[in-house]
């Protein structure tokens, strides 16, 4: 193997209450793809932020080519040949591709020359881009190309990629991997951050595993089993959710040809969406981010009123009803964004309980809130779902992502819904909490509820759903039993190739 490019020794960074990185050391060699593997909260982000000059380490040092490397800003990091493709937060919707690229460069060429180079480089690497399109109008995959091109234009020696595949279809992932392999043969080192084990096993030469801020191991992923990697990442084995045998009952929720225009320029319209879910059944809805997931949830929760006759609950048309009336009727939901949508960050858990449970749990009488009852309801959720919090009076924002997610999902489940719709129920949640939430979903189904889980995590959907459908540009494919599917079929469904025109649905 070639020489060491970046050498990290004893990096430590503490935030109040947590040590994000504790004495982390490893090396990245020229021309290798090196995985950084770990759960949410394991310290991956903090580590790359230190390499990219966004955060200064408390202790420890880095060397590039043997020379001391202590970037005080991203621009210093870029000058040393380090470039980074972010998962979120580095594009500007209202600016065009060329402007976005230019902002990521320290010494950009003149606008005309830049546009030409963007065309050249993007085509050379199989990622074509129009430099004059507004970034806000691009798909998630195209947005990622902008970030990658921005890095490539600076001839980086080390390219950091943060969870690059979470926004891509399986086919797009293949294209990305081709690009990365090409870069590798040109001698660029890649630090690849992910928690998707199969990806890492097929792509990466080495992997460094972080757990709770500490380095657990550096290994060759192709030589390890996925199970072994997962255990190193999580630290202990945890219960995999078990589905009890369920009997499918009557159809509880039926959506017929639901179309809704996009509420604003950066949203997706729903186009002729139809599906049905029966009692005791879990329907998984997959798809790449930004293909109508939020819009579908809003149409089901009642935040957006749908055209009459398109949403039926237990045979009754509820399309014109708002969230309160739909809850009364037995349809509950949980949106993706915990802070600010499912829960109010600065309000206590008691108040956040009242948020959706006010009427079903009789927390309000003649307009006045019974705070004693509200407190008891919050405490029941906390107990039943093992929410780690000092008490129900604590503000929602003080809880960790996993604990708050358990609270908001538990809040709906304890209200005994007939139909429950969840969007990304385990997004950004640690493995143990995710397993607990999935188990709760399966238990609820076993008790006879109909459940819709919208998720971008295909593994999760394969694990808990009975049937699977995919959203693509606001269209929903026909739902198919999970048992009949393989990766290729799922990829086609997600990519919008709805060629398998089977009958409209199973009933």
């Amino acid at each position: 193997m070639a020489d060491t490019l970046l050498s990290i020794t004893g990096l430590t960074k503490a935030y109040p209450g947590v040590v994000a990185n504790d004495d982390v050391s490893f090396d990245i060699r020229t021309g290798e793809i090196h995985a950084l593997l770990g759960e949410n909260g394991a310290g991956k982000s903090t580590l790359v932020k230190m390499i990219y000059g966004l955060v200064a380490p408390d202790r420890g040092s880095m060397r590039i080519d043997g020379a001391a490397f202590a970037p005080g800003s991203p621009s210093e990091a870029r000058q040393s040949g380090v470039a980074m493709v972010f998962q979120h937060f580095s594009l500007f919707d209202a600016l065009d591709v060329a402007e976005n690229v230019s902002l990521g460069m320290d010494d950009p060429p003149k606008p005309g020359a830049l546009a030409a180079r963007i065309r050249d480089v993007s085509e050379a690497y199989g990622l074509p881009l129009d430099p004059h399109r507004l970034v806000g109008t691009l798909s998630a995959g195209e947005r990622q190309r902008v970030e990658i091109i921005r890095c490539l234009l600076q001839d980086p020696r080390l390219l950091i990629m943060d969870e690059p595949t979470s926004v891509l279809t399986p086919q797009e992932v293949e294209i990305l991997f081709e690009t990365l392999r090409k870069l590798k043969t040109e001698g660029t080192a890649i630090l690849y951050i992910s928690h998707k084990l199969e990806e890492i096993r097929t792509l990466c030469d080495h992997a460094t595993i972080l757990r709770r801020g500490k380095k657990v191991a550096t290994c060759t992923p192709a030589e390890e089993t996925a199970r072994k990697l997962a255990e190193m990442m999580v630290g202990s084995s945890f219960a995999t959710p078990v589905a009890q045998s369920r009997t499918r009952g009557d159809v509880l929720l039926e959506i017929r040809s639901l179309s809704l225009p996009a509420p604003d320029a950066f949203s997706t319209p729903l186009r002729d969406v139809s599906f049905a879910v029966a009692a005791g059944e879990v329907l998984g809805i997959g798809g790449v981010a930004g293909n109508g997931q939020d819009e579908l949830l809003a149409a089901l929760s009642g935040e957006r009123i749908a055209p009459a006759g398109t949403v039926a609950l237990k045979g009754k048309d509820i399309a014109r009803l708002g969230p309160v009336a739909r809850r009364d009727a037995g349809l509950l939901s949980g949106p993706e964004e915990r802070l600010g949508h499912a829960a109010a960050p600065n309000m206590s858990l008691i108040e956040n309980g009242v948020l959706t449970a006010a009427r079903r749990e009789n927390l309000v009488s003649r307009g006045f809130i019974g705070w004693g009852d509200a407190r008891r309801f919050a405490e029941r959720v906390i107990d039943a779902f093992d929410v780690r919090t000092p008490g129900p009076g604590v503000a929602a924002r003080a809880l960790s992502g996993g604990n708050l997610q358990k609270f908001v999902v538990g809040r709906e489940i304890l209200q005994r819904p007939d139909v429950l719709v969840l969007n990304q129920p385990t997004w950004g949640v640690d493995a143990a909490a995710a397993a607990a939430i999935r188990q709760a979903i399966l238990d609820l189904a076993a008790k006879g509820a109909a459940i819709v889980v919208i998720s971008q995590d295909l593994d999760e959907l394969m694990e808990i759903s009975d049937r699977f459908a995919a959203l693509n540009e606001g269209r929903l494919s026909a739902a198919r039993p999970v048992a009949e599917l393989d990766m290729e079929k799922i990829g086609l469904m997600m990519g919008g190739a709805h060629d398998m025109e089977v009958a409209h649905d199973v009933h």
Partner: protein
Amino acid sequence: MDLGSISVVLLVASIMVSATPILLAAIGEMVVEKAGVLNLGVEGMMITGAVVGFAFAVNSGSPMFGFVAAALAGALLSSAFALLTQFLLSNQVATGLGLTLVGLGLSSLIGKPYEGIKSPTLPKLDIPILSDLPVVGRMLFSHDIMVYLSLLLVVCVWAFLKYTRAGLILRAVGESHDSAHALGYRVVRVRFLAILFGGACAGLGGAYLSLVRVPQWTEGMTAGAGWIALAIVVFASWRAGRILVGAYLFGGVTVLQLNLQAAGANVPVALLSASPYLITILVLIVISARGAHGAPASLARPFHASS
């Protein structure tokens, strides 16, 4: 009513004069909002500029010196807003309102000794040759230097935002401060500078009121001009060229209603003097009914680099 007594040449010339204070304040506020900050204190900075400019002009005998002092005073006052909102993370709406209240109080305190005094005013700057043109010459090319400077400022701001790298960074910060921060731009520094620029422009606008347009100091003389400047930024969809259109349109309404009042038009005086405000509301309705496009995405959102 005798509309014939309203001369077109004088009308256009006085529209330019009456639009200039709002134009200055609005172009400054637009830059601030482009950086993602909503400063509702324009009225307070304007009136402080008006009184400080007046005081310095009277004491020094030089109106230009007054303008410089007014710009500094506006910037100084806006730095208090910048400190509070950018470093102490206070609510921008509340802080802007507070700035207006402070400015109104401060100005009447400073202004007490200057009530009823006349100040030296700016000489007309006849542009050679052009000002000798018939009709157009006196209408467009025989103004004081601040009128031309305000127009030049609009062009400069337009070019700065469109063609320079610094302008691109400023827009980027206003679009998404998280992205800008992730790329290593100093969000707080960019915003601080933008706020100072906005303050200086508001101060200049105020001084134009007290030194040229009126020209005198009276308490509360801005009479909502700062708020109208804020409305014009919305009207202009955050574009420099349209700021010019908006300010001149508004200047036109003001001059027209004054002329109608003077000509004894058969319209209640209260309605005429309220017309600039009513028309501002009307314009806001039309703009928002069409959907306010172009607002910077991070406008009025506080930024805190959490990690």
